């Protein structure tokens, strides 16, 4: 699989020190890159659902790798809540998701949500950590705010819950 070959850890790569002086790049560099990613994918698909899927897949690949680097993250999401309806659902919500900040959705794309990319990252992280889940991104309109919050909904797989129950 192409993805596996790309970031395979050879010994010389592992020997490089993990923490470097440079930890950050400009936000706009990321914004430009992300917008190109979205635009490129737009040409490859016919509808919104497929576009979100592709973004989610891209995010998944990121998430699977970011788990190892997770300690560098400083920013914590606005809130983590447990869903009221189902035992296996959790939600992370964020007022202005990084990827949605610079993207405006044309009217004919209606429900499309670039948060799909972030949902993919979360799914990748959870999968690699051994917590398989279905992760989706949703817009939640808020009273008195122009832009809706974005919520990442995590629904854990059966086996995770069973394992949790066993561990007591």
């Amino acid at each position, binding site marked *: 699989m192409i993805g596996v070959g*790309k970031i395979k850890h050879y010994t010389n790569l592992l020997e490089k020190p993990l923490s470097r002086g*440079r930890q950050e790049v400009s936000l*706009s560099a990321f914004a430009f*890159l992300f917008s190109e990613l979205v635009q490129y994918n737009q040409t490859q698909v016919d509808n919104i659902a497929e576009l979100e899927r592709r973004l989610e897949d891209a995010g998944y690949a990121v998430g699977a790798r970011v788990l190892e680097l997770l300690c560098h993250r400083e920013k914590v999401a606005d809130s983590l809540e447990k869903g009221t309806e189902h035992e296996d659902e959790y939600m992370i919500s964020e007022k202005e998701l990084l990827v949605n900040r610079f993207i405006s959705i044309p009217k004919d794309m209606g429900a499309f949500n670039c948060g799909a990319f972030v949902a993919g990252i979360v799914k990748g992280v959870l999968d690699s950590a051994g917590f398989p889940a279905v992760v989706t991104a949703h817009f939640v309109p808020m009273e008195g705010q122009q832009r809706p919050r974005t919520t990442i909904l995590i629904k854990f797989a059966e086996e995770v819950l069973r394992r949790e129950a066993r561990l007591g």
Partner: protein
Amino acid sequence: MAPLAPKTGDAVFASIDHVNAELFTLTYGAMVRQLLTDLEEVEEVNKQLDQMYVGYNIGVRLIDEFLAKSNVSRCVDFKETADVIAKVGFKMFLGVTASVTNWDAEGTSFSLVLEDNPLVDFVELPDTFQGLHYCNILSGVIRGALEMVCNVSMKTEVTWVRDMLHGDDAYELRVKLLKQIPEEYPYKDDE
């Protein structure tokens, strides 16, 4: 009113919002992977990274932000342009500085050398993809940005000379000025 002094690369970089470099690196990796899966041919991917859909597109938009944030005044000549790209441009967006070397006799072609490159952290090229210019997006960005500089549009050709992913000791891009086109105003004031 005196024009604002141009800011150094460090100053601009410090004043703007940042994002975790690893996120950036991994997102770029995801994009290259998608391109490889869709296009399959390494040459096609190289082209796409450089041209329309990626590098060039970013370059033409990036130049506006660059000029706005850095207060750089109009460059007198190509040499100055080269320095500004390396010291301010790269620093501002990628957080690293490049150096300018190997000017040719006419002063129309130079090399940009990068030792540190956030795009390629944790990346190694498998044997089947040795022809891939992983960072080709950079050549597109430079080309696009130089073409859109407002006073004088510069048509350039950007090629890779050294690539660390291919075993070299640094990244070296050769930028060659093909043509300079002063902007023509659509109307004349007094006629």
